């Protein structure tokens, strides 16, 4: 049984006028214990929405209209809010984007971890909780005695580590990291990636990494799901995505990444802009910008289904032949 399985997840947003705009459509993936999945896409592709829905933390205007989220076989969309609360943080935990600003500035870092431990009834006694907080900080590479400092005394990288420590406090099975390396210096990024890899190995964590940075994904993710306009474009193992991409978007996206080993080589851009939620193309969402399918009748009319063209390699494109 997979730790996390998502089937056909569809999410809408309601505008002020009550009209439903489709933000995510037909998202499907599975995550095994101890593996990591990279959820990749650019701004507006819906990856943040997907991520929030995994914890049922959508903003007020969001509505999950279809699909299942199976955590160890249990559909999280069918359980009560009360039951969901014991899933959050204990089973599935999250490190937010801009986590550096998510720490309470008027409380010590240690006390915030203690609060998490006590709130979720992991440890009751404050003394034991403090000790555990210290252990967690050491685990992420922060000397335990710095726990008594305030967030403003921590650097950006250290705050990120503190947030990871907090997310791991309840020993979750799944950790969702939302752009954990954006806004950090390159060297700190590398440190954080190394830390996440270490946590995965040490704790058997399953990791969902949401990012727009393909390089980070190549570095540490086993599987990759490329999203575009709220739909899955391609979903396969990391090796396949980077070395045998079949979806036109994936192909172009890879070409847009400068390779430091080949300085001066050609770089591609994808013309146009991602679709707006209130102006979605009727067929394939990538069609207006697609170098293969632009103007093709079937691409204009129909949303391509996600097809497994070879074992483990799923593509949603009308013009890709199955193997």
């Amino acid at each position, binding site marked *: 049984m997979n730790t996390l399985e998502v089937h056909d997840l569809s999410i809408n947003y309601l505008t002020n006028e009550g009209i439903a705009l489709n933000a995510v459509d037909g998202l499907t993936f599975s995550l095994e214990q101890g593996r990591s999945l990279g959820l990749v896409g650019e701004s507006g592709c819906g990856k943040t929405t997907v991520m929030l829905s995994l914890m049922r933390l959508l903003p007020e205007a969001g509505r999950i209209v279809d699909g299942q989220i199976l955590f160890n076989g249990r559909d999280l969309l069918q359980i009560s809010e009360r039951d969901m609360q014991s899933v959050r943080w204990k089973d599935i935990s999250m490190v937010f984007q801009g986590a550096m600003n998510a720490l309470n500035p008027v409380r010590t870092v240690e006390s915030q971890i203690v609060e998490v431990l006590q709130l979720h009834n992991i440890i009751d006694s404050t003394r034991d909780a403090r000790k555990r907080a210290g252990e967690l900080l050491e685990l992420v590479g922060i000397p335990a005695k710095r726990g008594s400092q305030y967030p403003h005394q921590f650097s950006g990288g250290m705050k990120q580590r503190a947030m990871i420590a907090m997310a791991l406090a309840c020993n979750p099975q799944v950790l969702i990291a939302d752009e954990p390396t954006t806004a950090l210096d390159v060297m700190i990024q590398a440190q954080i990636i190394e830390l996440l890899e270490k946590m995965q190995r040490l704790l058997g964590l399953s990791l969902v990494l949401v990012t727009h*940075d393909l390089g980070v994904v190549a570095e540490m993710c086993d599987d990759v799901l490329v999203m575009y306009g709220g739909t899955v474009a391609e979903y396969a193992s990391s090796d396949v995505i980077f070395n045998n991409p079949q979806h036109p978007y994936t192909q172009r996206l890879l070409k847009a990444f400068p390779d430091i080993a080949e300085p001066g080589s050609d770089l591609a851009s994808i013309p146009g802009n991602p679709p707006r939620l209130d102006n979605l193309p009727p067929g394939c969402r990538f069609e207006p910008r697609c170098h293969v399918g632009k103007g093709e009748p079937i691409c204009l009319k129909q949303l391509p289904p996600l097809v497994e063209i070879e074992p483990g390699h799923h593509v949603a494109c009308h013009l890709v032949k199955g193997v």
Partner: protein
Amino acid sequence: MEKQPILQIEDLYKQFPVTRTFVDRVKRSPKQVVHALDGISFSVAQGEILALVGESGSGKTTVGMNVLGLQVPTKGYILFDGYNMADWAMGKLKSRKNGDELSRLSKRKQILALRRRAQMVFQDPYESLNPRQTIWEIVVEPLEIHDLGLSADEKEARVRAALEDCGLAPADHFWNRYPDELSGGQRQRVVIAGALVLEPELLVADEPVSMLDVSIRADILTLLQSLRKTRNITILYTTHDLATAGYFTDRMAVMYLGRVVEIGPTAEVLKEPRHPYTQALVSVAPVPNPRKKRKRMILQGEVPNPIDVPSGCRFHPRCPIATDECKITDPPYVKITSKHKVACLKTLSVD
């Protein structure tokens, strides 16, 4: 005879005082200073694209600000086309050369002349445009400020040319819009157009693509690169992303804590970095291919606070090959080739 470089930076220092609290004053604690730039020297030839690469605290943005005269150096000087930038930015140029037009102008006219020739592109396309101005107003404003004696038609032509050269064609489609109607990439093009409309010679691009989606970065960088060909503009490109620097720049200067630790032709520096810091940066730059896993040299700790610069070689606390000598000696530049310099005691001057 080699042409004089359009930009010459000589021993540039820039320090910012740390504001003292009342308690500090009472305790008479020593005055602290942020050493943003601690002795930078390099020059840029006309039409060249130079990358300034560094992490936070490296001083790369500060270099850009000083090069444009938006800040004044604490020590050292910057020469733009032979003129002292600090003086020029304040309108204080005095007559030096024979028949020198510039120094005879009034203070305000001197400053305007400078701004016409050196422009900037900013990092955050969502913050660098006035949300209350239309695109037309944004791009025409430099022309209005500089009062170039253009007729209304000429102004329109220039604005149109600037917008369309930046890929915003047809211009009429855009110039009645407001910034929030455009995407990040389009906004950045507007910023570039606003800089180009004055036909500058020097452009400082401060992390122009770091806030844009990956798939649009290439376009913006290609645009910048093309400016060299079409308008012979010299570009100073600041970034923390080595890979983008590798894409379109001629030379690269790697900065650490206010100093240039390595400078040389971009391809050479990326393929054969000599300074341990550069080597570390190159090794951890994410490569979009899981098969090409290379050994990552991850430095521990973080860039130290520029208030407390380490003694000797400022990189020694984090350097994997540092020795005792590195703790006391500030390394001088070692020439690898005529164009490639490194500031490291452990580098042997070869080739």
